[in-house]
């Protein structure tokens, strides 16, 4: 396991376990820790400069979220996404996104929807250019704004704790495969049009298509 560069100096009064959580999560997301990589207690202690307890707490949190998997008395490792299970994670993320849109669309103003449309246009442009990196960055901007508009705090908390790990799983599982860009592109275009007109049934259909939320996926 390569040792990532030292984590940023932490702001005052943050708990050690939260700092450990952030550092390990960031290392997984930026690829410093690779899918399936074993996480060794002693190495993590040396890297993070803290004791076993906060690191174990952070790993437990990451396990609950799905970034890390553990087998009793055996290993702790970064999750190793499998192509055949990716659709389950895609659908689960979609169920949350669909729920957020269900509560957001009826309470947004035309200006707020226009703002979301601009963010969706950025995703569409990146997909048209087949620029994966840019499409991921654009999607992050859109989903963050969408969560920001959500009036239901319980749903926000659940999404914050679930969406990132689902997205990681799907992106890693599909990376390196030659995917058909036309399908997500078409789904994002119809989502854009439905959202622009504030039409919830169109939004629903587009999200189901995008996240493959069908019983026969």
């Amino acid at each position: 396991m390569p040792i990532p560069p030292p984590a940023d100096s932490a702001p005052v009064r943050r708990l050690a376990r939260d700092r450990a959580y952030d550092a390990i999560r960031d290392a997984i997301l930026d690829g410093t820790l690779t899918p399936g990589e074993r996480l060794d207690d002693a190495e993590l202690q040396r890297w993070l400069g803290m004791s076993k307890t906060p690191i174990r707490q952070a790993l437990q949190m990451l396990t609950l979220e799905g970034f890390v998997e553990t087998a009793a008395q055996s290993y702790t490792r970064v999750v190793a996404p499998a192509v055949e299970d990716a659709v389950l994670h895609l659908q689960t993320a979609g169920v949350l996104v669909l729920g957020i849109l269900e509560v957001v669309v009826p309470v947004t103003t035309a200006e707020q929807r226009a703002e979301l449309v601009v963010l969706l246009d950025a995703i569409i442009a990146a997909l048209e250019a087949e620029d994966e990196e840019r499409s991921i960055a654009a999607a992050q901007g859109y989903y963050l704004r969408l969560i920001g508009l959500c009036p239901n705090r319980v749903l926000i908390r659940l999404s914050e704790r679930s969406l990132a790990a689902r997205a990681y799983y799907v992106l890693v599982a599909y990376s390196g495969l030659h995917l058909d860009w036309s399908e997500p592109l078409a789904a994002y275009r119809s989502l854009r049009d439905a959202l622009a007109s504030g039409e919830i049934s169109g939004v629903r259909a587009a999200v189901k298509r995008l996240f493959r939320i069908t019983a026969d996926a």
Partner: protein
Amino acid sequence: MPIPSQSHEDLRPRQLVRDRVYTEIRDAILTGVLLPGERLEEAGLREWLGVSSTPIRQALQTLAVEGFVETAPQSYTAVTTPHPEQARENLQTIGVLLSGMSILTLPALDAGQLARLATLAGAAAVRNRPGDGRTAVEAYFGALFELCPNTVLTRLAMQAGMSLAYQLTVAHHALDAELSGLSDGFRALQEALAANDVETAEAATRRIFLLP
């Protein structure tokens, strides 16, 4: 903090200590042995469960993530006190998970499975208040859980749903007026399922959970 009596349920042989501790504390909360707002002292838990601090802390961390307990840093851990003003948000969030499960499950079912769900929905139309204890509502959604092919979603719904449902049970009076339409919602669900109309069944599920 009263010490609950030892439970006698059989534990799965290879269950980890921290998983057993988690289940015991969670069940004590769900059954009301531990009450909302009640402080959880580590010494008391050690004595009750007969284990060391480590698995207790791990279990409390999981319970905190799920929302069963609240912790203040450097301070105490207590059973979550459900906030009535959050009852609607809890209900909607359960609804997001369960209506998603409906979309993924119902279209692939055969007529016999839909008919069985219709019967369960019919029972839920009669007995459905959150204060009713183990109700027909749970029986309906429990059956849906078992039929759902997406295990990632069911795991998330188990993880989040139990605590949300618990908080709702404790604070449901905040929604009394709005929940008066529950019976109509379940009846609409029953009729749609009996007619093999899964789209209407999905819409009825959203309505039951006060989703727009």
